[in-house]
């Protein structure tokens, strides 16, 4: 089950990035760099804003500055979602 959830997570991140950049999701892969996708720092802040909403997480400023690729973003979101789930009281959705 974790594998499935994690794949779904990556797909969701890609969807958010594609929507924010107004580009087709199929043009975004895990291996895409922000540079190749023409994502600059302001776009990055906008993407992070949408990801925070989508996953109900808070992404620290330091984390934003280090994002360079879709894979970085997916792994960063995954870490934050996991720590949120661990922090949630047992039985919580």
């Amino acid at each position, binding site marked *: 089950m974790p594998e499935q959830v994690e794949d779904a997570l990556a797909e969701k991140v890609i969807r958010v990035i594609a929507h924010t950049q107004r580009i087709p999701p199929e043009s975004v892969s895990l291996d895409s760099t922000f540079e190749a996708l023409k994502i*600059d*720092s*302001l776009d990055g802040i906008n993407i*992070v804003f949408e990801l925070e909403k989508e996953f109900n997480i808070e992404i620290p*400023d330091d984390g934003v*500055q280090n994002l360079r690729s879709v894979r970085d973003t997916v792994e960063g979101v995954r870490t934050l979602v996991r720590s949120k789930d661990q922090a949630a009281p047992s039985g919580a959705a």
Partner: protein
Amino acid sequence: MNRVAVTGQGLVCALGNTVAEGWARLIAGECRILPMKDPGSPPYKFRNGAEAWDFKPLDHFTEKDLVMLERFALLAVVAAREAVAQSGIRFEGDLSDRSAVITGSSVGGQFTEEEGYIRLYRENNPRVTPLTIPRTMANAGASRISLEFGIHGPAYTVATACSSSNHALGQAFWMVRNGQITAAIAGGSEAVFAEGLLRAWEAMRVVAPDVCRPFSADRKGLSLGEGAGMLVLENWNHARARGAAILGEVIGFGMSSDAHHITQPCVEGPAKAMDWAIRDADISPDQVDYINAHGTGTLANDVTETQAIRTVLGKRADSVLVSSTKSMHGHTLGAAGAIEAVACLLALKHGIVPPTVNFTARDPACDLNVIANEARTAQMQIALSNTFAFGGLNATLVLKGSED
């Protein structure tokens, strides 16, 4: 071309309600970026701001005035009153037609707009105050100043984000220099501590969680501030003829657009503005003694500004005195250029460089002669004052100390 004298200065910001109060704190190196009166609910990610802590509107205005004017306009008017009182200028007869009011404000009145949205969208009440337009318009301060002093010449407001008031001062300077007008009240004001605006700054992730530390290795962003600065600029001969005290001189102005990115700074644009200003002043880069830097304390600005200063000043960049007074009064956005022009003129007059406070460690990428934490005495004649705005708009003033 006419020489352009500064015969009056006005200041109200976190540093105090007058030029004298502000100068005392500038040379004391007192950081006035302090816990905000309203920390937000939920709390903002930054806890500090540079509010005009001691400003009490009813000390300066009637209740009726407060119905008509928003905070950014009140601040502008109070600073203009101080500048005009110091100048002793009276806008009468022909002079009232040959004088201008040119102000800068990034966003104008935000409080009334936000109150209107609360009514509309939270309370489902379509009745917003009929004073919304006159209170929020960015020229509200300029218009009130022209009304109050009976100035019938050009009056307008420039909105170029953080360069607004340098653009306003620069235009006023050129108009006096070219002889189109004899005098001007020019500067700018901003009142940023409105919740919607603060949330927007929060979302941009450029505000330091604690305080701004311009040019310091551990800087984490800017600190927001509010306030106003105003100058009376006057045809030199006119000022002399009426026996006015000349506080300093504006001798050059330059501006440029990066045409690079909507928010990311670059080196070339700011360098072009500084270069133009120096050429406009007909001085050489070696004559620049002090730079009041834009110095916001963001990672990007301070590095690109350093490189731009090096590009324009060459070898002189090793020794030119540099400070960012934003470390004390915050980044006052559309008022920044005006407040910092006042700081420059006072620095030149007193021979004291106000410091960059909150400075903890040198950053090799910002290898300028940054005057850190404590004011320094220095013989100075000429200062540059930089403002660089989101949108890539740059404006630099060249100021000279008084010969009196």
